[in-house]
């Protein structure tokens, strides 16, 4: 694919252009950062308020015991998926366009998982004992945790995912940090020197690095597929109609990748603008990203359809009642928002012309993010509101705490992301050099072009 890319920059420009963000980003960067920090502070204050008085300040109620917090959790875990997908799976597939976006896709993964990781804690009723029970040492109770609970699987899956993503991301960063080290002086040189582990870039290091990177990618690949499967088991393992289906793992993974790709795209556009990376994140790369979005969108479309089909085909009255209500009940708005945003609008990406229209694509990707949020809202809430016993049916309306904390989590995510952008190369410098035209001597080029003819 890189063959088609028209590079205007050469390898020599890479470091200079990309590291420019270490000095002076566009002023809009500061605006974005302060908004994010404000949101985080609001979220923290809301959480303090909620924790000191009780979960009642969120809209969750009986029978909707899981609400927006779990929606956010699944949403953020989903967002996190694209990063590892792009860096690991596409690495194994040797899809070269990933080299231009993988760095911040990975960063996005980490910060999204950081956001996601907060939500189980925000969600539990007794945050002050939850952490201790999960790691019960010293174990004065002689009691451990229930390894049969999908929530414990979640803890393992999410923490493994975060750790492995972090390792993967950091491993990719090491050569770039060494580049920075070699470009700065004083304290910064010292700090970056420590962070780069003393990377020197010898052929031997590169040799082991490549091997390690490959194995890490190979390990991360099943992880990507498993994390959202495990998250989906939180639902699929419960008896709840609308949750208790075997299609959930692949369905969730596809949805996660869809939302992740859309989020990558949503982030590329402003980052590309703020850090003037138009020459490195090329239109062709964006195009590839949109194609991936389209692919996952169609998978998700299929999953929605098959979910309905199975609900009908199984003949389970409880199951079908839920699906009937999803499409035509009081929560139909969320359902149709989800269908339109995730399945219908992305169909525009079939057209190359529309794909090239960045503004339109940007809007559609934002809509996909909205749609994916509503997908989780739809799955979690519409199933809970009306399940088996009609006498227990209820209704749900998000509470003020949930809304503020959701915004807070967006602030949290963007805050870390923006801080990352300021201090680390947004584009993987060592990797983008790989996909740029190789620095061959004019002799060699001549020889090659002659060989072609």
């Amino acid at each position, binding site marked *: 694919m890189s063959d088609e890319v028209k590079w205007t920059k050469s390898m020599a420009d890479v470091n200079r252009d990309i590291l420019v963000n270490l000095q002076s980003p566009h002023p809009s960067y500061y605006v974005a950062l302060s908004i994010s920090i404000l949101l985080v502070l609001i979220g923290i204050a809301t959480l303090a308020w909620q924790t000191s008085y009780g979960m009642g300040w969120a809209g969750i*109620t009986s029978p909707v015991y899981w609400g927006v917090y779990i929606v956010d959790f699944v949403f953020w875990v989903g967002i996190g998926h694209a990063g590892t997908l792009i860096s690991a799976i596409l690495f194994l597939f040797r899809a070269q366009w990933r080299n231009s976006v993988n760095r911040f896709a990975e960063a996005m993964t980490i910060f999204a998982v950081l956001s996601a990781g907060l939500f189980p804690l925000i969600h*539990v*009723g007794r945050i002050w004992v939850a952490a201790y029970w999960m790691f019960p040492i010293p174990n004065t109770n002689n*009691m451990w945790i229930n390894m049969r609970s999908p929530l414990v699987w979640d803890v393992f899956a999410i923490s493994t995912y975060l750790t492995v993503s972090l390792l993967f991301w950091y491993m990719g960063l090491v050569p770039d940090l060494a580049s920075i080290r070699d470009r700065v002086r004083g304290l910064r040189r010292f700090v970056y020197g420590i962070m780069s582990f003393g990377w020197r870039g010898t052929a031997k290091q590169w040799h082991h690095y490549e091997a390690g990177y490959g194995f890490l990618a190979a390990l991360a690949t099943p992880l990507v597929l498993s994390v959202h499967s495990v998250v989906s088991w939180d639902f699929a393992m419960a*008896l709840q109609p609308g949750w208790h289906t075997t299609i959930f793992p692949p369905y969730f993974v596809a949805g996660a990748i869809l939302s992740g790709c859309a989020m990558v795209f949503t982030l590329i556009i402003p980052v590309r603008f703020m850090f003037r990376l138009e020459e490195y994140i090329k239109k062709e790369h964006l195009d590839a990203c949109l194609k991936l979005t389209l692919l996952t969108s169609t998978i998700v479309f299929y999953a929605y359809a098959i979910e309905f089909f199975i609900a009908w085909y199984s003949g389970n*009255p409880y199951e079908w009642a839920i699906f009937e209500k999803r499409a035509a009940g009081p929560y139909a708005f969320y359902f149709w928002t989800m269908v339109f945003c995730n399945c219908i609008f992305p169909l525009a990406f079939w057209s190359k012309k529309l794909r090239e229209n960045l503004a339109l694509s940007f809007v559609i990707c934002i809509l996909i993010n909205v749609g994916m949020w509503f997908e989780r809202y739809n799955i979690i809430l519409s199933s809970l509101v009306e399940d088996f016993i009609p006498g227990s049916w209820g209704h749900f309306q998000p509470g003020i705490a949930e809304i503020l904390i959701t915004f807070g989590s967006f602030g949290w995510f963007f805050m870390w992301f923006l801080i990352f952008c300021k201090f680390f190369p947004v584009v993987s410098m060592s990797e983008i050099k790989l996909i740029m035209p190789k620095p061959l001597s004019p002799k060699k080029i001549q020889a090659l072009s002659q060989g072609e003819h």
Partner: protein
Amino acid sequence: MSDMHDDLDFQRSSLGEPGNDRSIPELNNSFQVSSNPKELKESDKALPTVQEKSMDMTEHSQRLAFTGGKEVFAPSEGPFEAPATQKISGSLYMEAEEIEPALAENESDLDTIGGKKNSLEDSFLKADIGRRDFLRLFGTGAAASVGAAACVRRPAETAIPFVNQPLDTVPGRPVHYASTCGECSAACGVHVKTREGRAVKIEGNSFSALSGGALCALGQGSIQALYHPERRSDPMEKSGSGFAKTTWDDAFKKIAGEISVGKKVAIFTGPSTGNRHTFFKEFLTKIGASENNLYTYDANPLLASLAAAYKMAFGRSAIARPDLRKAQTIIGIGSDFLDVGYSPVYFHKGYGISQNVTQMGTKGEHIHFESYLTLTGAKASERHVIAPGTELAVTLMLIEELLNSENVKGKESDREIARKLISKYKNNAPDAQDIESLRPAIKKTAERALRTSATAIMCGSTGNFDHNGFQLQLAAIVANCLVGSFDNVLELANGWFTPPVVPGDLARFINDAPNYDVVFFVDTNPFFTVPQKTGFHEAAAKLKTIVSIQAFPNETDLAATITLPGHHYLEAWGDESPVAGYWSFRQPAVRPTSGSRQAEDMLMWIAAHVSAPMGFENYQAYLKDKWQAVYKLLEDKKITYDIFVTLALRKGVFGKPDRVANSDMIDFVDSFNYTKAARGLILAAPFDVRLRDGRGAHIPILQEAGDSLTTVAWDTYIALNPGFAKNLGLRRNDHIKISAASGAEAVQSGLYPLPGLHPNVVVIPRGNGKAKGISKITDDLGVDPLVLVGGEIEPQTGMPITAGNVIKISQVGGKFVLAAMQKHNDLANRKDIVKTVTLEEVKQNASKQVELDKVPDLYPALVQGAYRWGMSIDLAKCTGCSACMVACSIENNIPQIGREQVIKGREMHWIRLDRYFEGPIDNPQVYFQPMMCQHCNHAPCEAVCPVYATTHDPEGINAMTYNRCVGTRYCANACPYKVRRFNWFTHAWNTMGERPMDRNPRALNPDVTVRTRGVMEKCNFCYQRIRAAKHEVEYLNQGEGGLKDGQIQTACQQTCPADAITFGDLSKDQSWVARNRKDSRAYLALGGDPEHKEYGLKTLPNVSYLAKVVNEKLKGSEPEHH
């Protein structure tokens, strides 16, 4: 001895000996500690003068002394109160701080209590702190932090033993006191469970022949009134527009002074069948007034109208006692005898036996005619909706049809009166043509009534007392004569009901009021329950002095010039004789908790100051004297008087039924006047099932339990026929206004379209809409439909006419969201939630045993412990009275959360009463299903908990470990029954809700952990009771051969008046619950259809249901009405 119970068993020796002399637990305070009755009297008398300082002491010691090593009380003061620190120099507690005196509630507290230093005490206890604070801070379990700087925290709790431990008190073990419920005139026997002097639970007295161990919701909830924080502790005197505190002495002297002026004194009191009215009469004569100055009144029109009707028909002051156990056919006409009749528990018990579905498929019949849906009507095997106001017409038509039948029973003279009545009625039959369409049904009913050997006809409701309300009772008597129910089902000659009120007294009082200077209003609230237009309020306003003696502040207090806080019935002496000849004694179960006094003692004191002493030291002595008469009934004189009192208390009811010869009916036809029923939209204002006439309105649990039919809690709903509402373009929760046809009076509330209503009837329950300023619970809550009622008073009964008024509806606009707990009202075509069978099917399957536990499973069977606890709920018996919900809440310290939170759906009831409508919307089949934790053997909730907070007990219980719970709420999601409850707030000190329904720590059950916010909770089969019984048997060797079936009763089962709930050991084949599980009607909720190898969710609950028996199975359900 008693006819009902001849055996004198002392089996329950674990009960405290509630003897005459040890009936108040003596505690450590400056009261005289006495072991003989005389001294106790002294202390009772001494109470007012010493209570100020010592009460606090008592309460705190009651709270603190030996709560099993645990303090379960949540601090009531508030979350952020600064803790005190105390100087303790232990090995770990290096830091020591002086307590700041400012922490005391006020200076005087310190001066009087903590400030008096004791030099000896000083030498040992280094820190000088006010004891009050010491107790308050340490005793509340709040933990004073010591050595915060050292980061070591140890809550220093104190253990305060008795000074003199009463003989029957073992710290940590409950003492039960037998007494009699005082919430209504039915006088059910109760056992009050006390722990270290605190009453923690009221249970029905299982020896009581009347209530049989059951109790209604109101009786269960009344414990919350005992410890209600808004009870007054001081007498109040009117000053200006408000009230000012005064002392008892001043108040008494003032009253005595006013009385001695002209002796124009009257007493206006509530219903009583015991010695209370006698005492009042004696008091009145003693101070020189007439005994006719006693007026008795109860808002329930049934009491007066029945008394008046029987007086007219038989010339006796007696009400026939419907012994429904014997009835094979029960015919109800506009009656709600099960929910708010005049003895709901007694009727429930009889009804349960009458309507019991035997394994052979037989069951009593119940045919019901009513204009709006009641719990009684919902239970009927056949229900007919009639136009409001036509109850009498229906009864007369029934009489006509009975007469037409050749099998008609009854004496010839009675038939003659009936014929005369019918001919009179035929001549001016105002409503006959309206109900002509019902004639086939009534004819069939008449035939059925005559076909069976025992029939009871129950007429008249508490709410629908219209112009014909009294005549309806007369007609009912005639009808009952014609089916031969007198002395068959209706006991009139042998143990009849004593009328608790004298008919006509209200009307008489309105007339007589100008003659009086001082009127005592004792335990009655006519200022709320009598409609404004009757003139009662105006008449009363002219009185010079109104003395109001109430256990809880009410509207009468607001209208009074002097209010004196009276005793809650758990603090009071008393007696009732609900059935003539039978006596139920009432003794205090606790020391007065709020500084109140016994009403009769106050009167004695006043009498003494008017220099007309009553001759007794106190009311206790007076009663002991009166009870000598009952003692004389006892033939076995080996039993001393003291033992007799103990025995009588324990038995609940004691005595010998009065007997008279059967008398003939008097011809009353000439004074029988039929008033034509009003046409148009008619108001029905029945009592709320739990709040009754408003006497339960300040009890949070009763508000929160909600109406069973609409599930509306904390509100007054306006119920309309759904079709009618639809035609008006109204939907549920629309804010509507109901106004009187003439006049500006109106009430506004939310609309609830309730199936089973006649289109012409509007139901607005009474009980709420109390005056502002009485209680924060009732402020701005609900409306009182009585403002729509005209001022007419029925002449014979003296009762205000509260029904049959024409009203109109208008829309206010917008929504008034009712706090309805159930959002969906039909079964959504789901087959394995509520199952129904017909009697035919029961007959066919008589010999069949179902095996609910045989479900294919991959996993090996679990290792079972010695027991497998299980429960069975008979849906054919459950009447939806919701006593179980209340009992469960009280037993298990379940918080009440208030209207706003109920609207959000966060009610905490561990046992939920699901109600479903099925079939035609105008006359639907109603199913009630108590739904609590099903204790699944394959519980979906357990496996998903990350921290093992909910696990499977080897004895079959789905255990919930609160302290382990982190509140992921996954279990609640996984539970298909949705019976888990989450603590959204710490309700004990949550100030977020708008009403203080916080639990008073004193009323908490010390055997059950109080849950904090963020913790899941649910039914645990009252494990505290299971463990107590097991320990009793295993370690105290009480009861040989292990636990007996039925020895452990869960709170819900214990109180169930319909005996719908069975609890026991499923591993014993012959236990009651195991047999119920094999019954042909047994099924598991969401358990599929095991007969066809469909096992549903395969959760294998240990709770099984017995299918409801219906006349015909309904194919599908009517579209729901939202």
